[in-house]
């Protein structure tokens, strides 16, 4: 059955055809008989690995893999079993046959399947597919993906992009289900009596046992021990078989910590690398070999939950001890806890709850309901800030160092400012805006997290050298992001003013609208302060890092546009060219300027801020721009109509008076 998975790896398949001569496959249990125990899940989730340049729990790795393929961080089987990322990954590792039946591959458009001539009857336009369902067309999928990959990413059609994406997901899934291939085979070691003696007369043995005897095998291969050609040939054959095992494609996850004194920046070891390491420098792989042996025993004992747990504990304790000795384990439990508690989804729930309760207060005002709104909003903000703080601790960085983190931070700051405003003026406007902005921010963060899962595989990536400075991240990036936050909040509150006036809400309550306009003004000033200081700090950073203060780079220009727009808006107000209406229109347009600086310039794909490039959000931005321009035009038309209406009314009164 294993051969079925490898059918797409033609090279590996060829190796498998030759494998039976010297590699004996264990009997295979294909399905898991009981759910994974809580203890197994806890131990496995906190296993440290190295991926994307950082040490992370395997739980994080599993979560992003599942998110990338499935679009969700969980999977519910046909039998109704809801699998967490760790449960799913355990199934992939230990029960690949079962995992290959899970419909985890999200295909957004069935034309992707049409393109590879592999449509599955009865599926919807957007549906989920299992590896087994995709398997008949895998050859065509990979061939098409290879063809489309030759095009520049921006030149590909949507379907072509999705074909490439699906092929990538399938390949990554195959890496997971093949991860333990090395543990599924026994290696024949009875070629000659001398060879057999190295392994205490065993006919076959595990990879870890063979690697343990690497020095003896090398001596045999060199003819230093043994009876001559027959032993050399047997040793050569054995080494070839190990090479064949390596080439099966499994073991590609850096799960074994290196030696304690290997240096801060040392690479962790993949099982697949151990064979080469053992034969080149056998003295350095003792600890990983013990861990490799534990992995092999886990595979062998997977049908026996108690024995499996014992072996897992051995692997876990060994890996954790090595990682702790290197000072690389400290934040692993915190990261597991961070993803387990899912702060941002919970914050979203509370933001939505706050908004719903606010909506009820519009229908039936109630002091208790209003207090409920405050409670829900405060809970949401606490969850959001806690999540951001945990990320800071895990990363050892200030709150904002990636685009994903800007979303969280901007939402948190906007909500906080709005809550302060509400405390000051108690108009029950800022609190509504806070719940809406908070919810939108959480939605956007989830959408962008999915995108990060697809493109980067993590939302805590390793930073490029130029960004490796907590001082500038904490000053320039944080201040400029606070400027974004205030700009967007001012725009949102300005919407309330415009919609309120246009739809006649609290008609004639001039004080109410005057107050809202003042709030817009105040938030805009707050935003301008942070935008200007943040932008200049960015220039100072560039001056101290690259030797020039200003280079007209798109990201710099984006920040400058916000400053210019803000200063222009204030001067328009100071000069009396705009009143409350015009000021609110400027604030709404200012929101568009912030969006351009925040996301738009990244779409251009030029400039020095290459770490901030993104794609795939053009449509969202475009729709937002169209809606906002619609709002401005509608407000303009309303203004024109209401002003001309008043003028007509005045003339009519004059005629009546003369009559």
């Amino acid at each position, binding site marked *: 059955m294993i051969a079925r998975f490898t059918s797409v790896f033609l090279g590996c398949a060829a190796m498998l055809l030759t494998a039976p001569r010297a590699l004996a496959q264990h009997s295979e249990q294909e399905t898991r008989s009981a759910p994974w125990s809580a203890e197994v899940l806890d131990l496995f989730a906190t296993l440290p690995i190295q991926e994307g340049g950082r040490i992370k729990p395997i739980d994080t790795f599993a979560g992003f893999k599942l998110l990338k393929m499935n679009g969700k961080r969980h999977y519910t089987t046909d039998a109704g079993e809801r699998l967490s990322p760790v449960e799913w990954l355990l199934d992939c590792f230990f029960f690949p046959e079962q995992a290959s039946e899970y419909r985890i591959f999200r295909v957004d458009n069935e034309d992707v399947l049409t393109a590879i001539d592999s449509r599955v009857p009865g599926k919807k336009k957007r549906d989920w597919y299992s590896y087994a369902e995709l398997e008949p067309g895998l050859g065509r999928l990979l061939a098409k993906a290879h063809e489309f990959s030759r095009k520049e990413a921006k030149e590909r059609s949507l379907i072509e992009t999705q074909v490439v994406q699906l092929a990538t997901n399938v390949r990554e899934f195959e890496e997971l289900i093949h991860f333990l291939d090395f543990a599924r085979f026994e290696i024949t070691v009875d070629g000659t009596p001398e060879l057999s003696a190295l392994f205490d007369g065993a006919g076959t043995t595990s990879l870890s046992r063979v690697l343990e005897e690497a020095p003896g095998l090398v001596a045999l291969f060199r003819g230093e021990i043994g009876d001559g050609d027959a032993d050399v040939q047997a040793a050569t054959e054995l080494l070839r078989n190990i090479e064949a095992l390596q080439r099966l494609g499994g073991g590609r996850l850096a799960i074994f910590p290196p030696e304690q004194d290997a240096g801060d920046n040392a690479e962790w070891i993949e099982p697949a690398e151990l064979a080469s390491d053992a034969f080149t420098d056998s003295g350095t792989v003792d600890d990983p070999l013990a861990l490799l042996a534990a992995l092999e025993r886990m595979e062998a004992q997977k049908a026996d939950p108690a024995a499996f747990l014992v072996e897992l504990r051995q692997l876990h304790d060994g890996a954790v001890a090595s990682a702790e000795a290197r000072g690389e384990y400290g934040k692993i439990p915190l990261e597991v806890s961070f993803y387990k508690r899912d702060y941002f989804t919970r914050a979203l729930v509370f933001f939505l709850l706050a908004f719903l309760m606010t909506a009820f207060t519009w229908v039936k005002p109630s002091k208790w309901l209003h207090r409920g709104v405050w409670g829900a909003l405060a809970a949401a903000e606490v969850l959001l800030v806690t999540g951001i703080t945990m990320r800071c601790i895990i990363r050892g960085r200030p709150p904002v160092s990636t685009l994903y983190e800007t979303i969280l931070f901007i939402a948190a700051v906007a909500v906080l400012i709005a809550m302060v405003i509400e405390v000051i003026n108690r108009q029950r406007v800022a609190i509504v805006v806070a719940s809406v902005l908070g919810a939108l921010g959480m939605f956007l963060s989830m959408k962008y997290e999915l995108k990060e899962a697809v493109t980067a595989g993590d939302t805590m990536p*390793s930073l490029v050298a130029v960004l490796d400075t907590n001082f500038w991240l904490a000053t320039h990036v944080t201040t400029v992001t606070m400027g974004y936050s205030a700009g967007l909040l001012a725009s949102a509150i300005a919407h309330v003013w415009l919609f309120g006036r246009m739809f006649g809400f609290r008609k004639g309550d001039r004080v109410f609208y005057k107050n809202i306009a*003042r709030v817009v003004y105040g938030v805009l000033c707050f935003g301008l*302060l942070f935008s*200007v200081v943040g932008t200049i700090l960015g220039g*100072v950073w560039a001056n101290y*890092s690259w030797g020039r*203060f200003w280079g007209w780079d798109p990201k710099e220009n984006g920040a400058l*546009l916000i400053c210019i727009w803000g200063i222009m808006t204030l001067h328009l107000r100071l000069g009396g060219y705009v009143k409350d209406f015009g000021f609110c229109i400027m604030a709404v347009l200012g929101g568009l300027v912030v969006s351009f600086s925040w996301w738009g310039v990244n779409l251009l794909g030029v400039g020095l801020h290459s770490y901030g490039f993104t794609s795939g959000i053009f449509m969202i931005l475009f729709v937002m721009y169209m809606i906002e321009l619609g709002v401005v035009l509608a407000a303009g038309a309303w203004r024109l109509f209401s002003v001309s209406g008043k003028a007509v009314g005045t003339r009519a009164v004059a005629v009546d008076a003369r009559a």
Partner: protein
Amino acid sequence: MSAKSPLTRAVDFGASYGNAVVLLFFLFLLTLFGTLEQVEHGLFEVQRKYFESFFLVADLGEIFDLPFRLPLPLPGAVLVLSLLTLNLLCGGLIRIRKNKSTLGVIIIHVGIVLMFAAGLVKLTASEDGHLTLFETESSDEFVSYYLWEVAIFDATQRADVQEHIIPDAAFLDLTGDRAATFTSPDLPFTVTLSHVAKNCRPLPKGPMWAADSPVVEGYALRAFELEEVAEQNVAGLHVRVDFADGESVEGLLWGFERSAWTFRTDGRVWGMSLRHKRYKMPFTVVLDDFTRELHPNTGIPKAFMSDITKREGGSESRLRISMNEPLRHGGLVLFQSSWGPSNAGPGDPLFSVFSVVRNPSDHWPAWSCGIIALGMIIAFGQKLYRYIRAQAAARQRLQAGEAQA
């Protein structure tokens, strides 16, 4: 009441909010279009067109990918920023009412003026270039990225070679047949430069293309469009050397020629080369070791570091230059810029590239940032304080009214 004179009216307008708004709007458009156009034309071209000009015509059709041309004449950033500075000085510093409530605004404007001044000083008085060294190499010069110079020297000299330099400002406009002659009492000949091309290649002249310079020994310069990245442009020119005896020789100089063009007179060999402008440093830098670190198991750069020895006046000091940690010394700043060769394998010799800047206004932007921040905090803080007090008072009035009722 006497009518205002035209001059007063002009000053009034120049210092007005309206003028500030109009100029800011133009600056907004220039920044926006100058950002979008970088996709097609690159930073160098756009910077020249939008941000270093007095007037320009933006093609909105091209910027927004429309199927037709849509030209829009605009004032360039140099003009807009000059007028904005005048507006700021007149309106925001001189004519503004000076009292407690405008203190913050005045401080903001002082900070902005300082920032503009920093930009002006950088533009007019700074020098920048790069210093590229392989490990164990040393140098006391850095090289401009895009300024050129013609160097003339006696090729028979040893050790400290005395050079005669013609700066690019003296010859860069000598396109086509325009020529200029250069003499020196130390040189036994005159040098005439012409047919300067800012981006060109010397090629064997064939019938398929028109030469952009006279043909010399079968070769001529072929001019190309300017590259988007300024450093990629390679200049070339035609040179004629006239000797006192009436004889002359002709040659082509090209910026990336590996060796100097040579000629002989009076038994001496002279060399001449077109090269990027070189600047002397008051110290020598030796690159001892360059380290490039990647995040483990990835291709993501984690750190670039150059361990150097700085030699100056008989003393030596060992220092490290890395990303975000430049060396500041002798009025110069050396930044870790890049490295190479990009395809180097393990054990291959690496070179380190330092950006070198001499900028008298190096720290002014940081000072201006502090001043502007202070001004904004004062200005907006006053308004916030008044707003909070007004809100509290209004609430008290409301509560008092409710109590009475």
